[in-house]
């Protein structure tokens, strides 16, 4: 601690803390210093349901639409409907829900999936999260006015706010009263480990430890079908090669296996494995599957398309560095600011079939 801060400790005399250390009691001094207002402003970004912490500002649905298409649509879909990378944000809510504050479809077990707008009860949650963590690859880059605009657009997509709405710190409390699932939460359960919420910790399920002649559930009601046997990879390679049990060789039909032989780990080509790791680290695989499209084309689809081209690797390296659009669809691939050596390694690897 710098000596210039010492006078502060005089003011902090009341903050001295006694801690029990064995039989003795000692006093903790000289550890930590007061946070400055500037530091607190830089980090204290949370917004509570009562809007404590909400910065002043405003943003329109129209502005939000422009921002959405530039920064959000690639992962969340133009209408918030995407299910390719993340769960859909919008859908499943109705005008009646906006009136009642309960999303009716949450009681419909047949309704597929649950969107963010079906679940979230508090508009502050959307604002707080967009501000702290979005966009996914550049969190905390949005200004408060942009967050107002994006929140407005998201709620507009869900028919909670009209097209001409301008959301602001002044009217956000009214918007809270339109949230489709605003009355859909309960804290009446036993899983909160404190006394200020919940039912005091009482479990909802009461079982008894019967020891003999117990009532059973005698039917095997659910198991993985044989065709899914290898869906998680060869289980023989997911168990130790010695032990009381070995892993089942799921590349073979059930019954054909008998006891599995000790299975050594699958050999990996070190070169390609490390390039795949590089692709993972540089977030290529966020938008590109190995085999199939996620947002952009699957890397092996790319390899197939350019298989006849002698300069495929050079071409792909340039594409990685400069970006492009229109070849595989309308969603552009942004230019990647990565070292040229990495781009070349990735391009070579992709051109040769992105082998694991």
């Amino acid at each position, binding site marked *: 601690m710098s000596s210039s801060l010492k006078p502060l400790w005089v003011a902090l005399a*009341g*903050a001295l803390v006694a801690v029990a250390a064995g039989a003795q009691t000692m006093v*903790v001094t000289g*550890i*930590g210093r*007061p*946070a400055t207002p500037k530091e607190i402003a830089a*980090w*204290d970004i*949370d917004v*509570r*349901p009562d809007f*404590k*912490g909400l910065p002043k500002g405003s943003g329109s649905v129209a502005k939000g639409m422009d921002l959405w298409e530039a920064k959000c649509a690639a992962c969340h879909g133009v209408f918030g409907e995407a299910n390719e990378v993340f769960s859909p944000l919008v859908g499943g809510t109705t005008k009646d829900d906006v009136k009642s504050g309960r999303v009716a479809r*949450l009681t419909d*077990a047949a309704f597929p999936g*649950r969107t963010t707008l079906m679940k979230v*009860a508090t508009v502050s*949650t959307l604002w*707080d999260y967009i501000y*702290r963590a979005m966009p*996914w690859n550049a*969190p905390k880059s949005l200004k408060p006015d942009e967050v107002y605009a994006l929140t407005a657009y998201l709620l507009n997509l869900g028919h909670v706010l009209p097209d001409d709405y301008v959301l602001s710190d002044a009217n956000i409390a009214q918007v809270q009263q339109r949230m489709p699932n605003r009355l859909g*939460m*309960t*804290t009446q359960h036993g*899983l*909160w*480990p*404190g006394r200020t919420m919940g039912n005091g*910790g009482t479990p*909802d*399920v009461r*079982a*008894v*430890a019967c020891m*003999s002649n117990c009532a*059973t*559930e*005698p039917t*095997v009601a*659910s*198991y*993985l079908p044989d065709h899914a046997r290898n*869906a*998680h*990879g060869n289980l023989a390679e*997911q*168990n*130790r090669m010695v*032990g009381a*049990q*070995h*892993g*089942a060789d*799921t590349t073979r039909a059930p019954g054909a*296996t008998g006891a599995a032989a000790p299975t*050594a780990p699958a050999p990996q080509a070190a070169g390609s494995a490390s390039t795949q790791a590089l692709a993972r680290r540089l*977030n290529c*695989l966020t938008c590109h599957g190995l085999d199939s499209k996620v947002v952009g084309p699957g890397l092996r689809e790319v390899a197939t398309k350019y298989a006849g081209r002698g300069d495929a690797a050079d071409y792909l390296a340039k594409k990685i560095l400069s970006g492009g659009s229109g070849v595989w669809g309308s969603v552009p691939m942004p230019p990647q600011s990565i070292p040229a050596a990495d781009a070349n390694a990735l391009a070579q690897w992709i051109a040769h079939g992105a082998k694991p």
Partner: protein
Amino acid sequence: MNEASPPSGRVVKAPESFLSREGIRAVFAEGRKGRRDFIRSAFAAAVAGAAAPAAMGQSNPVPVEGGDPNILELPAHSTGLGQGVATDGYGKPSKYESNVQRRQSPGLTQTTQSSVSFAPLQSLFGIITPSGLHFERHHQGWWDVDPSKHRLMVNGSDPKLLKTPMVFTMDELMRLPMVSRFHFIECGANTGMEWGNVAVPTVQYSHGMISCSEFTGVPLKVVLDLCGVDYKKARYVLGEGADGSSMTRTIPMEMVESGEVLLAYGQNGEMLRPENGYPLRLVVPGVQGVSWVKYLRRIEVGDKPWATKDEAIHYIDLMPDGKHRQYSSIQECKSVVTTPSGGQVLLDKGFYNISGLAWSGRGKVTKVDVSVDGGRSWRPARLENPVLSKCLTRFNLDWVWDGRPALVQSRATDETGYVQPTFRQLRAVRGTRSIYHNNAIQTWLVQDSGEVKNVQLS
């Protein structure tokens, strides 16, 4: 099949054919040479085989040559010079252990940065998860944070809730009174894929979002005391991470006041691993993993909960009436048999050790019962020491498998008297769509082929 590997197939021989034709020939050949002791020992073994046929080591038969080449032919490591000290400054597991890996569940997530990897419970012993096999859950990718630049800030939702908002360096936090405690951490969504039906083949994927470590750090209470927190008014605490997601979760002040919530930097004798929040994370014993905020940069004390994204959109439990349970946090008493378990094959009939893990977010495990008949009858398992509060407990039980199909289950009871429920009991209250907090009894079907399958009963 790897032909070079030692034999371990299901070779089940009747006692009378304990010696093969070649073996008999070998015995008599030895006998002709006057090796009476050889014959005596060979038949002594055959008699022992007759007394206990199923328990004999048929998976390890005496080879034709009259001895195991792994014994008869001395290997290089018995006849050569080995490697020197510090060949590897940070030692790694044997190369033969490389099947033991944490893994993603195929198709569960579209990205690796917002995803989960599961700990290989089927291959672990005891209660401690090796740090490199600890399950991972990242919401926006992991980082290796420079500890000399990492800071912890403590402030209040309202300035009046504490005397002084403060900032601490790692150097300072590591000077404070240090405690070390063993605790499990379980994701609230562990076993979540199995609410409606069987979805995954092995215990790694069904239960692998749990790990257990010795954590070292300073009780959060010590730091809040330094800041002069007003405990009468500030009944909630927010933890916030320094990573892109800046994860935030609300925890109750009661848990901080009890001294059990830690600002942890140590894990199993070394610093936290980057994937587990290096250099600083919250430890909130008994509470689901999402509250154990990694890369912890800030603690805020408040008079109301925050309804953050991971307590208002995710980590909320849908009930059959269409309402979501919010701020559900405690991981209730649960157990699972880890060997034998799904995707494994029993090598033969005979003796086995059933082994598994039990835990409770409400305290100590007091009892684990094991059934091999689908829950009709139960036997108490041995609990291995240590049995600690909000920590994994290892249990074991002797079992002789008769070669017939068996339904293996475990059922834990904790010190509050709570008994782990069946799927039927759990679904009767919560339905099948709540995703989180599935602590139902797990069933493994040992088929007559020896292969073990993940099944659910009804």
